[in-house]
Protein backbone atom coordinates (compact mmCIF):
# COMPACT_ATOMS: atom_id res chain seq x y z
CA UNK A 1 0.00 0.00 0.00
CA UNK A 2 1.27 3.47 -0.87
CA UNK A 3 0.32 6.49 1.17
CA UNK A 4 2.57 9.47 0.77
CA UNK A 5 2.19 12.74 2.64
CA UNK A 6 -1.21 14.35 3.16
CA UNK A 7 -4.23 13.64 1.00
CA UNK A 8 -6.88 16.26 0.12
CA UNK A 9 -8.61 17.64 3.19
CA UNK A 10 -6.40 15.67 5.56
CA UNK A 11 -5.64 17.23 8.93
CA UNK A 12 -1.87 17.33 9.37
CA UNK A 13 -2.04 16.61 13.10
CA UNK A 14 -5.05 14.34 13.55
CA UNK A 15 -4.86 12.48 10.23
CA UNK A 16 -8.60 12.89 9.87
CA UNK A 17 -10.48 14.25 6.85
CA UNK A 18 -11.89 17.76 6.99
CA UNK A 19 -14.98 17.79 4.78
CA UNK A 20 -14.86 21.58 4.63
CA UNK A 21 -11.68 21.20 2.57
CA UNK A 22 -13.25 18.71 0.15
CA UNK A 23 -12.61 21.19 -2.69
CA UNK A 24 -8.91 20.17 -2.51
CA UNK A 25 -9.94 16.84 -4.06
CA UNK A 26 -10.61 18.71 -7.30
CA UNK A 27 -7.12 20.27 -7.37
CA UNK A 28 -5.54 18.82 -10.51
CA UNK A 29 -2.04 20.05 -9.70
CA UNK A 30 -2.16 18.27 -6.34
CA UNK A 31 -3.15 15.03 -8.08
CA UNK A 32 -0.41 15.39 -10.68
CA UNK A 33 2.15 15.90 -7.92
CA UNK A 34 0.94 12.73 -6.16
CA UNK A 35 1.06 10.98 -9.51
CA UNK A 36 4.74 11.78 -9.90
CA UNK A 37 5.39 10.37 -6.42
CA UNK A 38 3.48 7.16 -7.24
CA UNK A 39 5.37 6.82 -10.52
CA UNK A 40 8.65 7.10 -8.60
CA UNK A 41 7.37 4.46 -6.17
CA UNK A 42 6.59 2.16 -9.09
CA UNK A 43 10.08 2.65 -10.49
CA UNK A 44 11.40 1.39 -7.16
CA UNK A 45 9.10 -1.61 -7.31
CA UNK A 46 10.21 -2.37 -10.86
CA UNK A 47 13.85 -2.28 -9.81
CA UNK A 48 13.14 -4.65 -6.93
CA UNK A 49 11.00 -7.13 -8.86
CA UNK A 50 12.37 -7.06 -12.41
CA UNK A 51 12.55 -10.52 -13.91
CA UNK A 52 10.01 -12.05 -11.53
CA UNK A 53 7.11 -11.90 -14.00
CA UNK A 54 5.01 -10.00 -11.48
CA UNK A 55 1.85 -8.18 -12.50
CA UNK A 56 1.64 -4.51 -11.63
CA UNK A 57 -1.89 -3.61 -10.59
CA UNK A 58 -3.20 -0.50 -8.90
CA UNK A 59 -6.33 -0.07 -6.80
CA UNK A 60 -7.46 3.45 -6.01
CA UNK A 61 -10.19 4.28 -3.52
CA UNK A 62 -12.03 7.58 -3.97
CA UNK A 63 -9.45 10.31 -4.59
CA UNK A 64 -6.75 7.63 -4.75
CA UNK A 65 -7.80 6.87 -8.31
CA UNK A 66 -6.92 10.43 -9.33
CA UNK A 67 -3.42 9.85 -7.98
CA UNK A 68 -3.09 6.59 -9.90
CA UNK A 69 -4.38 8.13 -13.15
CA UNK A 70 -1.93 10.98 -12.59
CA UNK A 71 0.83 8.39 -12.14
CA UNK A 72 0.00 7.13 -15.64
CA UNK A 73 0.36 10.71 -16.87
CA UNK A 74 3.80 10.69 -15.24
CA UNK A 75 4.74 7.46 -17.03
CA UNK A 76 3.70 4.66 -14.68
CA UNK A 77 2.15 1.63 -16.36
CA UNK A 78 -0.11 -1.04 -14.90
CA UNK A 79 -1.66 -4.28 -16.09
CA UNK A 80 -4.97 -3.49 -14.35
CA UNK A 81 -6.28 -0.38 -12.65
CA UNK A 82 -9.20 -0.84 -10.29
CA UNK A 83 -11.32 2.11 -9.24
CA UNK A 84 -13.13 1.69 -5.92
CA UNK A 85 -15.62 4.54 -6.07
CA UNK A 86 -12.88 6.47 -7.84
CA UNK A 87 -13.13 10.24 -8.08
CA UNK A 88 -11.78 11.07 -11.52
CA UNK A 89 -8.87 11.52 -13.86
CA UNK A 90 -6.80 14.61 -14.74
CA UNK A 91 -7.51 16.34 -18.05
CA UNK A 92 -4.16 15.21 -19.44
CA UNK A 93 -4.85 11.55 -18.67
CA UNK A 94 -5.23 9.11 -21.57
CA UNK A 95 -6.08 5.41 -21.12
CA UNK A 96 -3.25 3.05 -22.01
CA UNK A 97 -4.00 0.45 -24.67
CA UNK A 98 -2.45 -2.43 -22.70
CA UNK A 99 -4.12 -1.58 -19.39
CA UNK A 100 -7.42 -2.98 -18.18
CA UNK A 101 -9.64 -0.50 -16.35
CA UNK A 102 -12.40 -1.65 -13.95
CA UNK A 103 -14.64 0.60 -11.87
CA UNK A 104 -16.67 -0.60 -8.86
CA UNK A 105 -19.07 1.51 -6.84
CA UNK A 106 -22.28 1.76 -4.87
CA UNK A 107 -24.72 4.63 -5.16
CA UNK A 108 -22.85 6.98 -2.85
CA UNK A 109 -22.08 10.59 -2.03
CA UNK A 110 -19.27 10.85 -4.56
CA UNK A 111 -21.42 9.34 -7.30
CA UNK A 112 -24.02 11.96 -6.43
CA UNK A 113 -21.51 14.77 -6.91
CA UNK A 114 -20.25 13.13 -10.11
CA UNK A 115 -23.80 12.92 -11.42
CA UNK A 116 -24.10 16.64 -10.96
CA UNK A 117 -20.87 17.27 -12.87
CA UNK A 118 -19.10 18.66 -9.81
CA UNK A 119 -16.06 16.34 -9.82
CA UNK A 120 -13.06 16.47 -12.17
CA UNK A 121 -15.08 18.25 -14.85
CA UNK A 122 -17.16 15.10 -15.29
CA UNK A 123 -14.08 13.03 -16.20
CA UNK A 124 -14.91 10.17 -13.89
CA UNK A 125 -14.51 6.39 -14.18
CA UNK A 126 -18.24 5.73 -14.08
CA UNK A 127 -18.67 7.58 -17.36
CA UNK A 128 -15.33 7.13 -19.10
CA UNK A 129 -15.54 4.43 -21.80
CA UNK A 130 -12.07 3.14 -20.92
CA UNK A 131 -13.50 1.74 -17.68
CA UNK A 132 -15.85 -1.19 -17.39
CA UNK A 133 -18.26 0.05 -14.74
CA UNK A 134 -19.96 -2.12 -12.12
CA UNK A 135 -22.50 -0.41 -9.85
CA UNK A 136 -23.85 -2.57 -7.03
CA UNK A 137 -27.17 -2.48 -5.28
CA UNK A 138 -26.99 -1.87 -1.55
CA UNK A 139 -29.34 -1.57 1.39
CA UNK A 140 -30.81 1.94 1.45
CA UNK A 141 -30.85 2.42 -2.33
CA UNK A 142 -33.86 4.15 -3.73
CA UNK A 143 -34.90 5.95 -6.85
CA UNK A 144 -36.87 9.15 -6.91
CA UNK A 145 -38.64 10.44 -10.01
CA UNK A 146 -39.10 14.17 -9.97
CA UNK A 147 -41.88 15.60 -12.10
CA UNK A 148 -41.14 17.86 -15.02
CA UNK A 149 -40.09 21.39 -14.25
CA UNK A 150 -38.80 20.83 -10.70
CA UNK A 151 -35.01 21.06 -10.91
CA UNK A 152 -33.53 19.61 -7.73
CA UNK A 153 -30.26 21.44 -8.18
CA UNK A 154 -30.93 24.17 -10.68
CA UNK A 155 -28.30 22.61 -12.93
CA UNK A 156 -29.45 22.18 -16.46
CA UNK A 157 -32.90 20.71 -16.08
CA UNK A 158 -35.18 21.90 -18.83
CA UNK A 159 -38.90 21.51 -19.15
CA UNK A 160 -40.35 18.31 -20.57
CA UNK A 161 -37.99 16.03 -18.68
CA UNK A 162 -38.39 13.56 -15.87
CA UNK A 163 -35.39 13.48 -13.56
CA UNK A 164 -34.56 10.07 -12.15
CA UNK A 165 -32.56 10.34 -8.94
CA UNK A 166 -30.39 7.39 -7.89
CA UNK A 167 -30.05 7.76 -4.14
CA UNK A 168 -28.90 6.01 -1.02
CA UNK A 169 -30.20 6.89 2.40
CA UNK A 170 -26.65 6.85 3.82
CA UNK A 171 -24.41 8.16 1.02
CA UNK A 172 -21.27 8.63 3.12
CA UNK A 173 -21.33 5.10 4.58
CA UNK A 174 -22.09 3.75 1.11
CA UNK A 175 -18.95 5.49 -0.15
CA UNK A 176 -16.73 4.12 2.62
CA UNK A 177 -18.23 0.62 2.49
CA UNK A 178 -16.41 -0.22 -0.73
CA UNK A 179 -13.01 0.04 0.97
CA UNK A 180 -14.06 -1.99 4.00
CA UNK A 181 -14.08 -5.60 5.18
CA UNK A 182 -17.80 -5.44 5.95
CA UNK A 183 -19.55 -8.67 4.82
CA UNK A 184 -21.90 -6.51 2.76
CA UNK A 185 -18.85 -5.62 0.67
CA UNK A 186 -17.69 -9.21 0.16
CA UNK A 187 -19.29 -9.29 -3.30
CA UNK A 188 -17.07 -6.48 -4.49
CA UNK A 189 -13.94 -7.89 -2.84
CA UNK A 190 -14.56 -11.17 -4.68
CA UNK A 191 -15.07 -9.34 -7.98
CA UNK A 192 -11.96 -7.21 -7.54
CA UNK A 193 -9.99 -10.40 -6.93
CA UNK A 194 -11.48 -11.88 -10.11
CA UNK A 195 -10.57 -8.74 -12.05
CA UNK A 196 -6.95 -9.10 -10.99
CA UNK A 197 -6.63 -12.80 -11.89
Amino acid at each position, binding site marked *: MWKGDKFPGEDAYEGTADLLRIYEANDEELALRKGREIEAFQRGLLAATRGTGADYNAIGFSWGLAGIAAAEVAGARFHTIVSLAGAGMPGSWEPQPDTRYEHFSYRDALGAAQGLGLVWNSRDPGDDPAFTSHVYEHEGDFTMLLPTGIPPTGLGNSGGEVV*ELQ*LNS*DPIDAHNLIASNDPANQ*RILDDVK*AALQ
Partner: protein
Amino acid sequence: MTTVRRFAVCVVAVACAFGGCAAMPTYQEMPIAAAKSNTQASEDIVIAMIMAEADADPERRPLGSLLSCRGDRNYRWAGGTDIVRTGGAEMSEIADAMAAAADLLRGWRASREASAFDAPRVVIRADDSASFVVTLDAKENVIRVDSFSPCFHLRDDESPHGYY
Protein backbone atom coordinates in the same frame (compact mmCIF):
# COMPACT_ATOMS: atom_id res chain seq x y z
CA MET B 1 -41.17 12.05 -25.97
CA THR B 2 -40.24 12.09 -22.32
CA THR B 3 -36.56 12.06 -21.63
CA VAL B 4 -35.28 10.30 -18.54
CA ARG B 5 -32.06 11.71 -17.25
CA ARG B 6 -30.09 9.95 -14.60
CA PHE B 7 -28.78 11.93 -11.73
CA ALA B 8 -27.61 11.14 -8.28
CA VAL B 9 -27.80 13.56 -5.42
CA CYS B 10 -26.46 13.64 -1.91
CA VAL B 11 -29.13 13.88 0.75
CA VAL B 12 -27.24 14.29 3.97
CA ALA B 13 -30.34 15.24 5.93
CA VAL B 14 -31.97 12.00 4.86
CA ALA B 15 -28.81 10.15 5.87
CA CYS B 16 -29.28 11.28 9.47
CA ALA B 17 -32.94 10.45 9.36
CA PHE B 18 -32.21 6.91 8.21
CA GLY B 19 -29.67 6.12 10.87
CA GLY B 20 -26.40 7.61 9.65
CA CYS B 21 -26.24 9.57 12.90
CA ALA B 22 -27.21 6.62 15.11
CA ALA B 23 -25.46 5.89 18.41
CA MET B 24 -22.71 3.28 18.59
CA PRO B 25 -24.25 -0.19 18.80
CA THR B 26 -23.74 -2.56 21.72
CA TYR B 27 -23.23 -6.28 21.22
CA GLN B 28 -23.47 -9.33 23.42
CA GLU B 29 -20.19 -10.65 24.79
CA MET B 30 -19.30 -14.04 23.35
CA PRO B 31 -16.24 -16.33 23.22
CA ILE B 32 -14.66 -16.52 19.78
CA ALA B 33 -15.11 -20.29 19.75
CA ALA B 34 -18.87 -19.90 20.25
CA ALA B 35 -19.16 -17.35 17.44
CA LYS B 36 -17.22 -19.71 15.19
CA SER B 37 -19.19 -22.85 16.04
CA ASN B 38 -22.55 -21.09 15.71
CA THR B 39 -21.59 -19.71 12.31
CA GLN B 40 -20.23 -23.03 11.11
CA ALA B 41 -23.46 -24.74 12.19
CA SER B 42 -25.39 -22.39 9.91
CA GLU B 43 -22.74 -22.83 7.23
CA ASP B 44 -23.41 -26.57 7.38
CA ILE B 45 -26.98 -25.85 6.28
CA VAL B 46 -25.70 -23.80 3.33
CA ILE B 47 -23.34 -26.62 2.37
CA ALA B 48 -26.16 -29.17 2.63
CA MET B 49 -28.22 -27.08 0.22
CA ILE B 50 -25.35 -27.15 -2.26
CA MET B 51 -24.74 -30.89 -1.79
CA ALA B 52 -28.43 -31.54 -2.48
CA GLU B 53 -27.86 -30.30 -6.02
CA ALA B 54 -24.29 -31.25 -6.86
CA ASP B 55 -21.76 -34.00 -6.47
CA ALA B 56 -19.14 -32.09 -4.58
CA ASP B 57 -16.22 -32.29 -2.23
CA PRO B 58 -16.37 -29.65 0.53
CA GLU B 59 -13.25 -28.59 2.37
CA ARG B 60 -13.77 -26.32 5.32
CA ARG B 61 -11.10 -23.71 5.95
CA PRO B 62 -9.93 -24.74 9.43
CA LEU B 63 -9.18 -21.23 10.61
CA GLY B 64 -10.93 -17.93 10.23
CA SER B 65 -10.19 -14.46 11.51
CA LEU B 66 -11.92 -11.58 13.24
CA LEU B 67 -13.18 -8.55 11.35
CA SER B 68 -13.90 -5.35 13.22
CA CYS B 69 -17.43 -4.07 13.78
CA ARG B 70 -18.38 -0.57 14.90
CA GLY B 71 -17.47 0.23 18.47
CA ASP B 72 -14.71 -0.76 20.86
CA ARG B 73 -13.73 -4.47 20.86
CA ASN B 74 -16.65 -5.47 18.68
CA TYR B 75 -15.87 -8.09 16.05
CA ARG B 76 -17.37 -10.75 13.82
CA TRP B 77 -15.80 -14.09 13.01
CA ALA B 78 -15.20 -14.78 9.31
CA GLY B 79 -14.40 -18.14 7.74
CA GLY B 80 -15.72 -20.43 5.07
CA THR B 81 -15.67 -23.56 2.98
CA ASP B 82 -14.43 -24.27 -0.53
CA ILE B 83 -16.32 -26.91 -2.49
CA VAL B 84 -15.04 -28.62 -5.61
CA ARG B 85 -17.93 -29.64 -7.84
CA THR B 86 -17.41 -33.05 -9.39
CA GLY B 87 -20.80 -33.52 -11.04
CA GLY B 88 -24.51 -32.97 -10.79
CA ALA B 89 -26.31 -29.77 -11.64
CA GLU B 90 -24.70 -26.85 -13.42
CA MET B 91 -23.51 -23.93 -11.33
CA SER B 92 -26.36 -21.60 -12.27
CA GLU B 93 -28.88 -24.35 -11.45
CA ILE B 94 -27.22 -24.94 -8.09
CA ALA B 95 -27.40 -21.22 -7.35
CA ASP B 96 -31.06 -21.00 -8.31
CA ALA B 97 -32.01 -24.01 -6.20
CA MET B 98 -30.08 -23.07 -3.10
CA ALA B 99 -31.28 -19.45 -3.20
CA ALA B 100 -34.87 -20.69 -3.34
CA ALA B 101 -34.25 -23.18 -0.52
CA ALA B 102 -32.50 -20.67 1.72
CA ASP B 103 -35.24 -18.13 1.22
CA LEU B 104 -37.74 -20.61 2.63
CA LEU B 105 -35.89 -20.96 5.93
CA ARG B 106 -37.33 -18.97 8.80
CA GLY B 107 -35.12 -15.99 9.59
CA TRP B 108 -33.09 -16.20 6.38
CA ARG B 109 -33.29 -14.02 3.28
CA ALA B 110 -31.49 -15.04 0.12
CA SER B 111 -30.84 -13.10 -3.04
CA ARG B 112 -29.70 -14.66 -6.30
CA GLU B 113 -27.16 -12.42 -7.94
CA ALA B 114 -24.31 -12.53 -10.44
CA SER B 115 -20.74 -11.35 -10.03
CA ALA B 116 -19.36 -8.51 -12.15
CA PHE B 117 -18.08 -11.22 -14.47
CA ASP B 118 -21.34 -13.17 -14.60
CA ALA B 119 -20.49 -15.92 -12.11
CA PRO B 120 -23.64 -17.02 -10.24
CA ARG B 121 -23.76 -15.79 -6.66
CA VAL B 122 -26.12 -16.19 -3.71
CA VAL B 123 -26.10 -13.82 -0.74
CA ILE B 124 -27.84 -15.04 2.43
CA ARG B 125 -28.57 -12.77 5.37
CA ALA B 126 -29.95 -14.08 8.63
CA ASP B 127 -32.11 -12.09 11.00
CA ASP B 128 -29.35 -12.28 13.64
CA SER B 129 -27.07 -10.52 11.07
CA ALA B 130 -24.97 -13.58 10.24
CA SER B 131 -24.37 -13.70 6.50
CA PHE B 132 -23.08 -16.03 3.82
CA VAL B 133 -21.79 -15.17 0.35
CA VAL B 134 -21.72 -18.11 -2.05
CA THR B 135 -19.83 -17.61 -5.32
CA LEU B 136 -19.98 -20.36 -7.93
CA ASP B 137 -17.06 -20.39 -10.36
CA ALA B 138 -17.93 -22.55 -13.36
CA LYS B 139 -14.51 -22.08 -14.94
CA GLU B 140 -12.65 -23.47 -11.91
CA ASN B 141 -15.53 -25.74 -10.82
CA VAL B 142 -15.26 -24.33 -7.32
CA ILE B 143 -17.99 -23.05 -5.03
CA ARG B 144 -16.75 -20.64 -2.40
CA VAL B 145 -18.79 -20.12 0.75
CA ASP B 146 -17.71 -17.09 2.82
CA SER B 147 -19.35 -17.02 6.25
CA PHE B 148 -19.64 -14.17 8.73
CA SER B 149 -20.94 -14.32 12.28
CA PRO B 150 -23.06 -11.60 13.84
CA CYS B 151 -21.04 -8.88 15.58
CA PHE B 152 -20.17 -9.68 19.19
CA HIS B 153 -18.23 -8.04 21.99
CA LEU B 154 -14.85 -9.67 22.50
CA ARG B 155 -14.06 -10.93 25.99
CA ASP B 156 -11.23 -9.18 27.81
CA ASP B 157 -9.18 -12.39 27.97
CA GLU B 158 -9.23 -12.93 24.18
CA SER B 159 -7.24 -11.18 21.49
CA PRO B 160 -8.59 -10.05 18.11
CA HIS B 161 -5.27 -10.84 16.42
CA GLY B 162 -4.46 -14.21 14.96
CA TYR B 163 -6.48 -17.01 13.39
CA TYR B 164 -9.31 -18.91 15.02
